[in-house]
């Protein structure tokens, strides 16, 4: 499934990434992303995250489980939430680990420019035991603060 180019490029741009899964009791569990991109060939969003930093989140991140991921541009608070079902959770490839490292390298100065220092972000960007969570993007929502927050951009299928 294709995403609009602007949305696809937004997911892999310099954005903060937060994600949620849920357990059998429907309790939500939070994790943070360390880079993401849209895989055009597979039609999947690929979220990179530290499995060791976010064990409760990863315990529920299994094939078939629902996931919600919000991408936020720090300078403008422009935000998009993408929801879908997880297709696969695997250890990150070396290419993906390099992508995560680049992501951290790019985000730190960006956030510093906004007054958020490295210490404040010291556990936000974690790439230890990096894993790739693939999911098919079923719903997209605008989440920029303001009157249109929460409105669906589109629903697929």
């Amino acid at each position: 499934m294709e995403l609009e180019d602007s949305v696809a490029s937004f997911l892999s741009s310099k954005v903060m990434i937060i994600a949620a899964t849920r357990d059998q009791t429907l309790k939500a569990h939070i994790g943070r992303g360390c880079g993401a991109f849209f895989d055009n060939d597979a039609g999947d969003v690929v979220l990179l995250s530290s499995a060791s930093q976010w064990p409760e989140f990863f315990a529920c991140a299994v094939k078939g489980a629902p996931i919600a991921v919000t991408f936020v541009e720090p300078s403008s608070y422009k935000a998009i939430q993408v929801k879908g079902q997880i297709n696969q959770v695997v250890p990150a490839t070396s290419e993906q680990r390099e992508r995560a490292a680049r992501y951290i390298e790019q985000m730190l100065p960006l956030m510093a420019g906004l007054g958020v220092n490295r210490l404040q972000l010291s556990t936000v960007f974690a790439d230890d035991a990096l894993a790739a969570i693939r999911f098919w993007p079923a719903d997209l929502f605008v989440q920029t603060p303001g009157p249109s927050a929460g409105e669906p951009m589109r629903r697929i299928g």
Partner: protein
Amino acid sequence: MTNVPLETLRDSFEGIMPSVIATTDPAGMPNISYLSHVQYVDSSHVVLSNQFFSKTAANVKASGRATLVVIDGRTGLQHVLDLTFERSMREGEIFERISAHLDVMAGLQGKSDMLKLKAVDIYKVESCRCVEPVAPLQTAPQAPAVSRNLLGEAAATTRLFSEMTDAETLLDRSLELLEQKFGVLHSMILLTNETGSKLSTVASRGYPHFGFGAEVAFGDGIVGIAAQRRLTIRIADMRRGQRYVSAVAEAGRPPQEEIAMPVIDQPQSQIALPLIANGRLAGVLFAESTESFAFSHDDEAAFEILAAQIAAGLAIFELADASSDYSDQHPALDGSIHQGKGFRLRFFPHDGGVFIDNDYVIRGVPGRLLFHFVQAYLQTGRTEFSNREIRRDRSLNLPEFKDNLETRLILLRRRLEERGGPVRLERPERGQIRLRIEGMPRLVIE
């Protein structure tokens, strides 16, 4: 059951780093978003404002549960909180505090209605767990073993206040002591005007100019909102608020001021405390810093003690002045009336506004006083006046004595002094006022 005591997380509720909230809908689909406000209520409760994200609200309504991640802005440590919804509040102290804070942040961008708070939600914290840092990018330095004894400093400061015998000393020394005891480099005291619609700067410290007489309208900015709501407002990181609000609204222009308010470049922390005594608002104590996180919860508590003491002190000095029997001095004549070049003193009776030539000087009670002094001088040559006769003179249309005549005289004297002539006031002794005029004034009543 709370595993990590919430008291140890107070710095995570400062709004320095955005919190994250996750919920699940009845079909099992999670939802995740940032949250503008999480505040500590007590050892087992937090309060959230969530005025934009309707999906979160709907999910909480259905399930009664939410999961939160907060970050300590000082250490970068994160905690997960499992929450159970208890109740919404549309009024009360907690609601008013968060509402006031949001209004200040919105006001930074000149869009005070964009973030109007409808309700706050109180949640019980079922569990609080640290997110163990597996590979931190940086580790926080050890906190100092001995923290500052703010209660002791507040007690020492109030002891010094107790020794003071006049309002002017109290105003200046309190700002000096804020610097000496608490490291506050930039501070000011503003007084409420007689109609309760504006505040005027009467004392300031640590600014390029004093700005005596500079005004803030009630409801405008952190100082005006602190006065209007009679609440302490503390902003730990102003950049956060500015960024959040700019996502909602374009920046607006601040109102023009007739006397420039003393300011510092790029303040990062601010705190405004109402000065209340006998149930009346006398003014606002304001402090700011170029550092984020300059004022903690404990600083706020200490400053509230000092603010109460300052307000009580001003009220006591006013009462003492009003009941004193300092005798009226015989009017003195001044020989300087023909010296220097002439000037026009314009008076606007509707608001007590005074202009010297075309420059605004002051308005309200201080303006009426200045007009009175100059008029009496022109009519009789008098230069000496007393607090006592001013209080008795009904033609001045003064508010009752409790409305701070003494502090208004201080304000007027300081404004004239900072302005640099041709009219000045001196206080030769307690309860006495001496007018100094260079040149011949021409009174114009507009």
